[in-house]
């Protein structure tokens, strides 16, 4: 079981309604959620040292590609780098997989929030215990 203080999430989606609903759901399930609606805002927050345990982003953002945000997060210093990186996308992906995107979880929209939250929590726990 992860303490509430450790369940921090930076949520990035240019779809405002979706970001709000996701944020609300994760908040209600014990996550401390920061919401941003653009890739640049998320980038700024990460650089400023927000250091969430988890980064959840859409693959297609209005101002930048979600994969670029993930790549940038990977490049952060270990102390402020998100431990878990999650991508949700509405695209039908061809050869794109979670490995070549460099993410831990890749889910197609519309995602099941219960399963996603459970998976994220399990994976985060395993990362923390490693």
């Amino acid at each position, binding site marked *: 079981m992860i303490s509430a203080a450790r369940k921090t999430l930076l949520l990035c989606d240019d*779809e405002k*309604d*979706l970001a709000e*609903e*996701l944020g*609300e*759901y994760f908040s*209600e399930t014990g996550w401390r959620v920061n919401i941003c609606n653009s890739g640049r805002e998320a980038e700024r927050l990460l650089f400023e040292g927000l250091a969430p345990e988890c980064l959840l982003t859409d693959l*297609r953002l*209005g101002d930048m*590609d979600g994969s670029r945000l993930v790549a940038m997060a990977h490049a952060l210093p270990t102390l402020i780098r998100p431990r878990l990186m999650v991508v*949700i*996308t*509405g*695209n*039908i992906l061809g050869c794109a997989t979670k490995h070549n995107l460099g993410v831990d979880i890749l889910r*197609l*929209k*519309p*995602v*099941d*929030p*219960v399963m996603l939250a459970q998976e994220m929590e399990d994976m985060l726990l395993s990362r923390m215990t490693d």
Partner: protein
Amino acid sequence: MTLKLSNLRRRWSLLVTVALVATTACLFAATTFLYLDHARQREMLAVSIRTSGWVAYQAQIELIKTLAALRIDAVDPSMVGQEDVLLRIEILRSRLPILYESEEGKLLNELPAHVPTIKGYEAIIDVFLAEVEAQPEVIVPTQRLNKLHDELQPLARTLQKILQTSVAYNESIYKREQELAKSPAFIPLALMFFSVTSLVVFVLLQAMRDRQRLIAVERAQAEAAHMQENLRALIRAMPAVVVVFDSLNNVVSFANPLAQTLIDTAPPTSKEWRRFLKAAQDSLTGDEAEGVIVSFSFQRSNGKILALRGRRQRVMWEGRQQCMLALADTTQVRDAELQIMQAAKLATLGEMASAIAHEINQPLTVIRMAAANAQRLLANGDTASLEAKLDRINAQIERARRITDQVRRYGRSTTLHAEPFFLRRAIDLAISFVAEQYSMSGIRLVIELDLPVELQVSGEQTLFEQVIVNLLINARDAFEENRAKGAHPTVQVRARVEGEQVSVSVQDQAGGIHQDILSTVFDPFTTTKSESHGTGLGLSLSRKIIRGMKGEIVASNAGGGALFLINLPVYRREAELREAAQ
């Protein structure tokens, strides 16, 4: 060669005609002259015969009578004998001046030589008469009477000479008369003969020429009649719709069997024919241009839509100027084209499936998340916030419906039935259809639509939208292929009105169209894409669609990319056109 011979024959004929006319005129003039001369001579002859000798003869008779009276009275002078002498002498005296004063006497050339002699005898007579008049009651003695007799006796010789001269003159006149009587029998007859012959030849030649002309005209008329009959048979037999109508009252004068089968078998004044003519008229661009191409659809009374394409031409038909429509039934071609267009649209939809799925997934995801949150709120008993969730779910369902509507609208089968539509809305719909895909591809869309919302063009709206979608997808594909070359991903869609034309342009900066295919870019199966992308028919169909809207589409390279420019006529209602005309 034939032309030369014909010219020669015509010249020769003209020459003969002129010669005949000239000859006839000369002969007529000669005959007239002869007639006048003959008449004058006859007149002269009559005068001469009446005069010559007659005057001298009368004078001679009177002289003889006078001499006889003088002799008788000289035997036994008496008052009675004297009166007889006086009467005779006075008559003689009156006859003598006639010899040289009358017109007839002047005809004799020798007479002037005798005038002094005659006047001498007149003086002798006058003296005698004066003596008698001085003493009227005195009987003239025998000696005086004999003296006068002797004095007048030589007058007989003078008169005889004049008489002989007259006789000689009359003889010459008689000869001339005889000659005259003989000569006219030949010359005028010959002249008349030549005149008549010339006239007859002239008339015959003219008749021959007229007959030849008549034969030529009859032959030409027969050929024209045959040709007309052949043409009518051809028109009846040909597998094309041929309709002749009077453009003044829009009444059909002729419709070949195929036209009657396809359009209507009703009388030419029926509503169906009027509707047909109106459809043809509405498809014309401009006014009464000659040989203008017409292409239109016509819905028959049984609901079937015919596609017809051909020409409208002015013709002389049944003696007056009318219009002829010669049309091919292109319904099957139209149906095949529609199938190709449909296939092309479905291919486009297939290419866009990924973007469409993404677009639909967005509202679905929001709905799912909102539903999950609503369930949680419900479980917690927080019904106050539930309504907001349901509103959000409804809004997202509406969003998904719009997307599916758009797909359904784009994918539905189309007809080529033209009707006015709002251009700006059509462009907006086309752009919104590809916007998601552009967003996914990271291509910026710059939209500058300087169009009134109410501006309309005539055509099939979804087909026009397909044209814009095709151009935008082509631009996207061009960027996909040239991304490695660092092309800047921006596509501009512009539209503006210029008078009665509206232009719509789609321009990218993806390197442009290769020069080798620029001139054939609208030909079927011209493409630079791989086999997995596109059919090579998109631009060809686009041009067909735009031409069907009486517009034109051209391609060029500009600003580092391809520029497709569409020009369309602005649709005006009849009332607006009438106002503009006024």
